[in-house]
């Protein structure tokens, strides 16, 4: 894939809607299913991934000419692992309450396919600034996905939003259970598919 010709804002929107990592590219579904039991969790992990994505993309874009093609993947993994460890330590030191809730998932960011795939597909072929905006787009898309699933699950499962009791009762406790994560993601994916179908239909009608 050659270097992209999109403008920076287009890159950002690309990441949020057209190539949303969770709903369209179907990458990194583990946290989408597992950690979206409340908006706060989704927000925290989404921000961490945003951070790692931006920094890794920029780092790889900066050193892309020095990476030997045969050790591409280990290099990506090394970069991601370093940034993940950095954010792991920083979170533990400065935001201990939130860090305790995210537990093992922060360390697992390394294995999130989204970051590696993005580095492989984009960062190693584009400039630092383009990678930066793409990283932001992907990160925000991921964050948006996490928060929206978290919103649905928290509201329907616990009746709260960000901890504030909105409904006063728990409609369906089921939504907080892990199984519901699967349901939510599946239904929202179908919803995004539907939006695409409608969008295409409108485009066809215009032509």
């Amino acid at each position, binding site marked *: 894939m050659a270097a992209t010709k999109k403008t920076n804002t287009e890159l950002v929107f690309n990441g949020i809607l057209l190539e949303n990592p969770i709903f369209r590219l*179907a*990458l*990194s*579904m*583990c946290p989408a*299913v*597992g950690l979206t039991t409340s908006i706060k969790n989704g927000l925290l992990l989404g921000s961490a991934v945003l951070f790692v994505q931006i920094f890794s993309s920029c780092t790889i874009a900066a050193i892309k000419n020095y990476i030997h093609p045969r050790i591409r*993947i*280990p290099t990506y*993994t*090394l970069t991601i*692992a*370093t940034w*993940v*460890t950095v954010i*792991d*330590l920083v979170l533990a030191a400065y935001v201990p309450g939130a860090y305790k809730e995210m537990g*093992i998932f922060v*360390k*697992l960011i*390394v*294995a*999130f*396919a989204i970051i*590696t795939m993005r580095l492989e597909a984009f960062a190693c072929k584009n400039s630092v600034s383009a990678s930066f905006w793409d990283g932001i787009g992907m990160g925000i898309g991921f964050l948006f996905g996490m928060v929206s699933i978290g919103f649905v699950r928290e509201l329907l499962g616990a009746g709260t939003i960000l901890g504030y009791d909105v409904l006063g009762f728990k409609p369906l406790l089921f939504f907080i*259970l*892990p*199984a*519901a*994560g*699967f*349901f939510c*993601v*599946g*239904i929202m*994916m*179908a*919803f995004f*598919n*539907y939006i695409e*179908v409608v969008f295409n239909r409108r485009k066809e009608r215009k032509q």
Partner: protein
Amino acid sequence: MRALMKRFIFWPGWILGAVLLLFAGCNTEHAFVKKIAFKDSRSIMIEFAGELDADWAVDPAHYKAYEKRDPDVLLAIDKIMLSPDKKSVTVHFAEEINQKEPHIVGLAPIRSQGQDLGPALLSVKRLYIGELFSILIGAMLINNFVFTKYLGLCVFFGTSKKKNTAVGMGITFTLVMVASAMMSWFLYQFILKPFRLDFLQVVIFIGMVSLAVQAVDTVLRKVNPALFKAFGVYLVLVIANCIILAVPLTLASNEYSAWESLMLALGAGTGFLLALFLMSSARERLELADIPQTYRGLPIAFVTAGLFALAFMGFSGLAIF
């Protein structure tokens, strides 16, 4: 001569070691005591090789019992019952004992048929093999990595379209899982922990996984090319699997021993295989069903996975040992 020695010591030595390890629960350190074990939630039973003096046997002052980790907290003994054949006693405690913890029972000099046989310090715990088995079942069913811990989903949904693919992926994954888990355990115990390099966990474990994938790749290529042709392509996918990193991280934070790590890795691998098999069977049927267009492909797969996850929730709370 050396070759003969090797053959004699090597095989039986390992088997004997394994057997001794597995039956550690029944270990007794006194020649006269045959067996000691937990009887129920409030008593421990001790079997002797011969008859005991009745008045010595039923006196609680001759018995001392405590949990191994709290040797100063002596458990209150209610009464001692002697069996009719005078060869075994049941020690009843005033409160329930926690069978999950190893306990120590100390006996004042045992008196049998007028003779003084010396004191004894006996340890009681549940069978180690029971604990190992419960870790295995835990990782496989109760805390199934896909349905309960929602890890490894990308690869899961990618390879569960057909049964052959699914089973192939599952088996490859189990192999790599066991190999990398053992290597990671080794590194953690002997390098990371003593040198306080815990923060390098992530990097080291991922490195181990890459090495393991490479190793399995090379070995498989040479040993069984046919097998390699069938499974080789999945090896690359293994590295993108969250589970492969989660297992070493778990065994590091729980400080598992070598056997326990092996059980965890096996359980994780077979659990993944089970999940893949079930999912692929369902998806093959779904291909033939009439599904609304927006749901085709991944969305309906997710909903199916959700139903499986609900079913697996039924395993929570399962405790065999």
